[in-house]
């Protein structure tokens, strides 16, 4: 029997925190004399009230004990719950958004995807803009905590390799884990602050700087302007963005390790090396292509290529140009890069580099085994052995990813989307990247013109991707609910 008390208790806490967060945009709106402060205050009250009710109703005695099943249910319910309540400000505002629109925007925020159904961002009330960025900021740290603490416990998609080298007894949240989480949260906030200051120095207004800092470090991609980073002409801003997107896309525990006396831990990690290697290769290829094909000068080409490639691979989703116009190779490259992702334990989404390392190691082993079928070799990544169960776990994840991608694409096509929009929309949602391809949802477009059904499908896709599929799939099996 599943004990729902701790689950709803924690969800209540999360909702209360969310409600409090809603007061920040409320304050900003009140200060700029925008009537929207009522929207946020109202939403804050509703959310906070619900949260408090849950806390009071499900308050138990003694320590919180979460078994495996409760952990799964908690993960899914908290993300769904936060998404629904986070949609309230969008719904109540006078932007005339349907429920599908509001939920889409909220989920795109909390999963740090960055796809938007809003147009006319430049003239929108500040509260709404700040709320979008805050959602991504919250989503970013939520992902890291989930990746470090929760997913290894649940042995989702190969993540068990990242288990804290502390106890094997999964029920205890060890002090080491708590300390790690605290340090990472501090680093996260520190990076956001540094990023905001850098943006401001480079020329953004303070409001723009804070908003973009929130969505850069969280590799979310929401902007305060329709044109995304194309609006900012100075090269400095773009290079800063590249640097901070990279920071957001690298394993945060490595930063902690650097602080504890191992300054080069980041560069020694093989996942980081693969990550940077893939980026360099992609940037070089795209840069060469646009120099040859579009006749852009070398300096600008490198900057354009670097910005957009890093944006897509870290699953941020800013665009500094409409790269859909760059020609066939660029379009294909950006499409495939949508699947790659950043490093594990960062804010990035998609497959993640570590999984490609494992898959590559397993595939090489398979090839080697063809010649010597009875030799027993164990593939290694970063000195750690890839056991059979980890290998199969990652291989299965790859299949889940492909399957979900195909299913979402087919559903989108059912709602009338053309092939390019369907397969790029699916890819970008499941990978939590942001922009798709094509004239509709490409870097120069947005998701507003899609039918409501398609928006719901995409919302589901974003959640599936962020929660690494199995977390949700396991809830659909009958044996989960039996016992």
């Amino acid at each position, binding site marked *: 029997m599943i004990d729902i008390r701790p689950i709803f208790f924690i969800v209540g806490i999360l909702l209360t925190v969310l409600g409090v967060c809603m007061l920040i945009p409320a304050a900003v709106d009140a200060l700029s004399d925008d009537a929207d402060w009522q929207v946020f205050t109202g939403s804050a009250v509703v959310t906070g009230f619900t949260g408090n009710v849950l806390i009071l109703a499900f308050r138990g005695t003694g320590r919180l004990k979460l078994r495996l099943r409760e952990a799964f249910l908690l993960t899914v319910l908290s993300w769904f719950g936060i998404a629904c309540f986070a949609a309230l400000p969008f719904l109540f505002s006078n932007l005339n958004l349907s429920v599908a629109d509001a939920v889409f925007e909220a989920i795109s925020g909390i999963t740090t995807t960055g796809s938007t159904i809003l147009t006319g961002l430049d003239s929108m009330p500040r509260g709404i803009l700040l709320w979008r960025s805050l959602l991504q900021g919250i989503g970013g740290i939520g992902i890291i905590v989930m990746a470090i603490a929760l997913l290894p416990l649940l042995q989702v998609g190969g993540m068990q390799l990242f288990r804290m080298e502390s106890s094997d007894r999964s029920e205890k949240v060890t002090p080491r884990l708590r300390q790690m989480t605290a340090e990472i949260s501090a680093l996260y906030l520190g990076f956001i602050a540094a990023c905001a200051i850098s943006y401001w120095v480079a020329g953004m207004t303070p409001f723009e700087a804070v908003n973009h800092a929130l969505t850069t470090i969280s590799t979310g991609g929401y902007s305060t302007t329709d044109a995304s980073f194309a609006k900012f002409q100075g090269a400095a801003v773009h290079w800063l963005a590249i640097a901070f997107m990279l920071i957001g896309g690298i394993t945060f525990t490595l930063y902690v390790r650097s602080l504890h006396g191992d300054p080069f831990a980041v560069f020694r990690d093989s996942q980081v090396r693969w990550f940077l290697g893939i980026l360099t290769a992609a940037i070089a290829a795209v840069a060469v292509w646009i120099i040859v094909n579009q006749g852009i000068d070398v300096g600008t080409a490198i900057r354009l290529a670097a910005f957009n490639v890093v944006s897509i691979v870290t699953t941020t989703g800013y665009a500094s140009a409409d790269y859909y116009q760059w020609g066939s190779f660029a379009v294909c490259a950006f499409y495939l890069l949508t699947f790659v992702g950043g490093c594990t334990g960062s804010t990035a989404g998609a497959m993640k580099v570590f999984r490609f390392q494992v898959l590559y190691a397993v595939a090489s082993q398979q090839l080697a085994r063809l010649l010597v079928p009875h030799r027993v070799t164990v593939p290694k990544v970063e000195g750690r052995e890839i056991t059979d169960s980890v290998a199969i776990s990652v291989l*299965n994840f790859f299949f889940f990813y492909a399957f979900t991608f195909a299913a979402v694409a087919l559903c989108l096509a059912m709602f009338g989307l053309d092939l390019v929009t369907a397969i790029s929309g699916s890819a970008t949602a499941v990978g939590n990247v942001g922009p798709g391809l094509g004239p509709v949802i490409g870097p120069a477009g947005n998701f507003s013109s899609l039918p409501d059904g398609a928006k719901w499908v995409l919302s589901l896709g974003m959640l599936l991707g962020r929660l690494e599929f199995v977390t949700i799939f396991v809830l659909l099996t009958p044996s989960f609910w039996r016992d």
Partner: protein
Amino acid sequence: MIDFRPIFFVLGILLVTLSLGMGGPALADVIAGQNDWQVFMGSSATCLFVGVALILTMRTERVRFTLRQAFLLTTLSWAVIALFGALPFAFSDLGLSFTDAVFESMSGITTTGATVITKLDDAPPGLLLWRAILQWLGGIGIIVMAISVLPMLQVGGMQLFHMESTDQSEKALPRVAQVTSAIIIIYFGLSALCATSYWLAGMSGFDAVAHAMTTVATGGYSTFDQSVGFFKNDAIEWVAVVFMAAGALPFVLYLQFVRGNLLMLVRDSQVQTFFGIVFCAITVLVVWQVAVDQVPIGTSIRLVAFNLISVITGTGYATTDFGLWGEFSVTVFFFAMFIGGCAGSTTCGLKIFRLQVLYANTRCQIKKLMQPHGVFIPHFNRRPIPAAASESVLSFFFLYIMAFGALSIGLGWMGLDFITAVSGAASAIANVGPGLGPVIGPAGTYAPLPDAAKWMLSFGMLLGRLELFTVLVLLTPAFWRT
């Protein structure tokens, strides 16, 4: 050091066979009064010469193959046949470049069915027959490979189809040889049945034979630019549906059927899954067409059944430009390209058994999430799947997608637009034939593509046909070290 002599010996035999095969088209051209018979005689002579030279110089006492030699032979035989099979195309007056000739030949022998020839209706009968023969040979080649070679090489999960003999390869060989020759006879029979059916339904004798060869081989070459749509004949289309499906079932089961084991065909899990998927897909598309496009239901069933089975089995005939059916259908067809038929048939793609293994594995994976210390074993065909086989299939799936991605990027670099690059890559690796979009879609051909793109696609076709690993293993340094 790898001993190349047995390899070249077998290649010699294959080339002699190929040269004999060129006799048919030569005859057809003579009868039709076309000058092309000279082309075929010349190509045949070249093949014969090289083949006999190889046989005589590389003759060894024992023909026993090590694992390395087997891998090398598999890849080389397909590549060599594709190269020499290109001779008639290169020498003909169709004005085909060397690139085009190899592309057409590779597309034939891998039963892909993508073509660079733009005016099929005016082409001499010899060439049309040669295209069909290439696909027909390719079809039986795949089956033989799937039954005898791939399980031994343990490529991509094929070890699940090992003949239930002992592990020692000497004992397995006579049984395998027996089964193989029986299946070749069945293949002949099925093709003859198909040709007769086509003829009865209204095709001319020549067309019937040419189409039968490419139907049973699930290749897709036609003697007309408009493919089977040219005939505008319902009966012909239904015959095609039946025999395309027949080509997609495991031929070993036909053998069992002939031997009196009637139920095995029906009870085989791969066959059931195949028809299950096909049935679902057809239903969904028909419902869509009737509801959204208001197509009359009878027409819709025929159109959908034909084109969907054509794409899933990797045949590649077209009756209409299914690119015009609306975006949902196009997306369905795009993903259907990857599926394929059953293992041990003439089809390509991922193959049904791999999808079954993938699904069985994911079910166990999910159960394991809830009970991390439980022991869950995936099953295929009511037997447990060994972990090595699961990993093999899962890795195959990964490499398949990677190869598809790499090929798309390569085609993009050559200037192909997004849809053409992506659908071309999928179509080549899955050996389907037509792509999507205005250039290489069912209404187009591969002729306008740049040469480099055609070479990439040819390589992709070979890679897909040989189930990736067989070719990739040749690229690892460990293969060439002793």
